[in-house]
């Protein structure tokens, strides 16, 4: 039973195991986060000073 189920869900598409695209996406997200927080405080600065 279980075996049959496993087989049907088996993926045929093969991903390169040395791919680092998740890392690339992560550092981009990190960069966006830094920019967003920085710009928000920058707006506070511009309003106040």
């Amino acid at each position, binding site marked *: 039973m279980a075996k049959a189920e496993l087989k049907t869900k088996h993926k045929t598409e093969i991903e390169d195991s040395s791919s680092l695209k998740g890392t690339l996406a992560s550092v981009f997200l990190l960069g966006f986060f830094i920019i967003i927080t920085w710009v928000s*405080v920058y707006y506070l600065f511009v309003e106040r000073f």
Partner: protein
Amino acid sequence: MVNSAVSKIKVDPRDAKLSMAHFYVAFIALALGGLMGLLQTLVRSGKYELPGGIGYYQILTVHGVMMGLVLTTFFIMGFQYAAVSRTAGTHSNAARRTGWIGFWTMTAGTAMAATMVLLNKASVLYTFYAPLQAHWIFYLGLTLVVVGSWIDGAAQIMTYAKWRKNNPGKPSPLLSFMAVINTVLWIVATLGVAATVLFQLLPWSLGLVDTVDVLVSRTLFWYFGHPLVYFWLLPAYMCWYTIIPKIIGGKIFSDSLARLSFILFLLFSIPVGFHHQLTEPGIDPAWKFFQVVLTFMVVIPSLMTAFSLFATFERYGRSKGATGLFGWFKVLPWGDARFTVPFIGMASFIPAGAGGIINASNQMDQVVHNTIWITGHFHLTAATSVVLTFFGISYWLIPHLTGRKLTKAMNKLGIIQGWVWFIGMVFMSGAMHFEGLLGGPRRSAFSTYGGAKQAAEWIPYQIAQAVGGSILFLGIILVLIIFINLAFFAPKGEEEFPVGEAENPQESAPMVFENWKLWLGITAALILFAYTIPFIDIIQNAPPGSKGFKTW
């Protein structure tokens, strides 16, 4: 497997004893400092007053000194001493004796300084800014802590030098190399604080001179103060770069990249102290700007670290069959406290680092300077990223050193501890950040500021900090329970000291990384360039010195 023999290597019991001695002091400091932290948040909520006329600034001094100076320095020295013993070989008797002398010197100094603070003779906060004047025994105690740490650090350097001599032409073990970089960073940095304490504060508190040059002493303090935070951070990076990969069953992404980032930290973390003095008069703005530029150079090794950690995790995940953009994230060993607790620390470094970039942005510092935002910031960097990593290290290192095992129950408690800390810190540090943006001051007991409308806006955030502080205190109790269990009660056994291997072991690190003349030369050149002219300026245009003040 070839490397299973390597991973069984144990720290020699004689070295283990010295490491453990450091950890006892560190965890006593954590207990004492943690209680003070809780009290601070309660006082600041406005709902609680300290009994017996105890002053807020006295407990704040205890907290800052215990957490920021004692816990960190003792833990780091104990950890690095063990890490060098594990990777470069057992310390010689001479090195071990040196280590013990350093340890006892530091401990004696700590006892002296702590006694004066507890007697209310030194409520000068952990930065001991002049013209606040403490009892001279406090300053003498600090001197002994610094000198003791130099002797302690010398033990690591001796063993590293011995390894280099026995293995000519080979790059040293990564963990030992990193420990020595951090020790060298510490020695160069503490020269500044030693100078102000020995030549200014000690003679002045003894009454040998009447006045002190405030700006000179603050400048020397911050020459030390910024590299101090990197001295805290680099041992956490040692764990993230070299130990975490082994724990998850992966590989170090790149040995050379790790070494390069440590060297960049050595170069760029010292000539940047002015970024703590941006609002201070008496320093030429051009030189402030120059040091701000150098400050931003530290972004480079920080992002290199982030990249390399993501890469380690993704490589590991994909080797386990994870697919998709973020599939690797799910297969990480979330049930292992040795991984999860430091991981929470790493994740906290993302908002912590973003906040740091804001602080360092010359003009924007005016928005956050001396507000409780700053306190929120370093409770993410030091009090989460760094200490959670230290706790995560303790969970295997303490049993490794005491010949015990991290049991399933303690592993589980460790994971709970990490999440409790995280939740407490979201409340406390989060509320501190927002209150700071509304102008709420740091280093301040509760006050309504004469019923000011703006001050009323801060109170809800202060209550949220008390909630967070209470949760964090629970986290501290859990850490202490685990520490005592692992040190004295856990079942006997063998706990691994994990040390990762590089993905491409045949690709050895370039020997230029071990060229200390080169790196110390560049470090010195950058420091001299960044500080000489402004320092001459500060001294030549100095206002009259200040007499001492005791505000408590």
